[in-house]
């Protein structure tokens, strides 16, 4: 049975109507949020402590409604981007293994040189690879391994750069290992330490570092505004419904002019506060990376404290990301390419599977797909039309 698109037509029509109806409601909420942002702009210090308890964005010394225009960008600088992809282990496959592929691009702005394109694939198949702290590596745990592989790759490329060069290293996604949340404390500590070690290597290399999240759904600043409107009283804020709870932060920051960034905030994540050293405490800001006269393209940029507290490095991250994004229009070019270099396409996956089969046969290992996988391979190639 194939997907019956005809059955979806009515639901599609209703979805369109629902979104159109909600638009006006969302516009009112955005207006409300922007008003609060201005109204409570100078209450950062008062809100800092309760914000942490309320899991809201934690204000820094900057006013909540601060706007920083695009700083001057150096004529020549190096932008290093990394992104990762993985093949999850599958008990229905011929063998239990996983694959992580990290793509990276080293782009030297203003040099006229061909950027360096790299990819670093690794297979995990030994007992040590497949079990981490006695936990089977798959799902979130594999995501953590991929995040570590990405930041390690970034740190390796940073270490290879001249310390005198002006370099910005950017990873796709977040600097916080969110997926550690549901793991045992000892595991959290060990993995966060591994991650922070790589941030240390990047810092030692004299490189600025950041992460880039396109159109983020986070609502931590909205929680902060709700808390502010409740006078900074956590109990009251918890009891009263938050009218902004479904509004993502980026919608409010679409008022940023092209190239401008918002105020800095500290991430309220417990992983950030319990496992990241003070120098690496993750801060974030919102940035409109769109070109002049273009529709806003808001990204969330995360930086460690040692960047947030160094205005020249913070400006470098700010300007470099906008310069990169303006090559494509609204997304850093080197990150697009890092994603492309990491991506494992269908034909590549098939070729990889063939290599696995050959190597198993050569090693004298006799195995087979699970019955479930076998029949899926029969039915999913050239899927027949319904009826």
């Amino acid at each position, binding site marked *: 049975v194939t997907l019956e698109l005809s059955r979806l037509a009515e639901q599609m029509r209703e979805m369109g109507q629902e979104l159109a109806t909600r638009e006006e409601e969302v516009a009112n909420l955005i207006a409300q949020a922007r008003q609060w942002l201005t109204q409570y702009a100078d209450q950062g210090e008062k809100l800092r402590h309760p914000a942490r308890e309320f899991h809201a964005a934690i204000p820094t010394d900057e006013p909540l409604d601060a706007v920083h225009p695009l700083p001057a960008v150096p004529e020549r600088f190096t932008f290093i981007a990394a992104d990762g992809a993985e093949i999850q282990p599958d008990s229905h496959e011929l063998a239990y293994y996983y694959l992580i592929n990290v793509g990276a*691009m080293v*782009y*030297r*702005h203003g*040099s*006229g*040189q*061909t*950027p360096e*394109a790299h990819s670093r694939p690794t297979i995990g198949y030994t007992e040590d690879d497949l079990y981490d702290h006695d936990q089977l590596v798959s799902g979130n745990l594999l995501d953590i391994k991929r995040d570590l592989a990405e930041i390690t790759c970034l740190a390796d490329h940073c270490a290879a750069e001249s310390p005198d060069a002006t370099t910005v290293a950017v990873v796709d996604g977040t600097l916080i290992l969110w997926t550690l949340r549901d793991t045992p404390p000892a595991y959290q500590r060990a993995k966060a330490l591994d991650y922070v070690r790589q941030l240390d290597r990047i810092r030692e290399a004299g490189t600025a570092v950041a992460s880039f999240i396109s159109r983020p759904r986070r609502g931590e600043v909205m929680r902060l505004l709700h808390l502010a409107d409740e006078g900074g009283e956590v109990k009251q804020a918890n009891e009263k419904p938050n009218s902004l709870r479904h509004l993502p932060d980026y919608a409010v920051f679409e008022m940023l002019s092209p190239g401008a960034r918002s105020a800095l905030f500290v991430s309220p994540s417990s992983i950030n506060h319990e496992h990241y050293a003070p120098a690496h405490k993750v801060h974030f800001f919102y940035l409109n990376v769109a070109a002049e006269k273009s529709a806003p393209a808001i990204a969330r940029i995360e930086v460690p404290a040692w960047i947030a507290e160094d205005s020249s490095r913070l400006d470098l991250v700010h300007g470099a990301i906008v310069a990169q994004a303006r*090559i*494509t*229009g609204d997304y850093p*070019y080197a990150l*697009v*390419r890092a994603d*492309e270099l990491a991506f494992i396409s269908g034909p590549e996956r098939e070729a990889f599977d063939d290599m696995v089969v050959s190597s198993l046969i050569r090693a004298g290992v006799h195995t087979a797909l699970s019955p479930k996988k076998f029949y899926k391979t029969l039915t999913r190639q050239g899927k027949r039309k319904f009826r």
Partner: protein
Amino acid sequence: MSDNRLNVGRVLRAGTQGFVVGCEVLQPEIPKFGTFVRAEGVAPGSVIYGLIYNVSLEDDLFARHFIGADTPEEVVRDQRVNRQVPIEVSVLAVGCGDGETILHCLPPQPPVTLDWLTQCTDEEVRTFTSRLDYFQLILGARQVPIDELLVASVRNAAAARAENEGETFLVDAGRELARLLAGDPLRLEGLLRRLRVD
């Protein structure tokens, strides 16, 4: 004249009548229309000879994004050098050999996927074109620009010879075409005009 063997690309798809190879970057000399190329056959020592009849660059949505924009030089270089620009080279099979003899006929088996396709050396071109029976394979091919391919291959074969031998070769090739196209004088005239040495 050159005796260096140059890699054109690796075989992507193959049949006994011809094959398609993929290559990453266009270079000044390869791949070029009408060039004599060779691939290893499946049997040990066997060789398949062919002529390049088409070079195509496939469309790419990301590269298209930068057309007309004020694109930085770094991006242009990245797109040309690093990205897997899908250049496909189509080859018409015109002969095969076992290491000792060369036959102007379709090969018994196609080359294998990912085998290297290389440009024939001048000596190989001279040996292969010491007879002109392969003309019939080109004339019988359906998917290729026949007359253009005939002219290009003859000119390339003449260029692989010393100057005076090249001229003699052109005359011999013209005679063979006259024999094969005796019933089509207009087409023959067009071909001979294009082969004429000024």
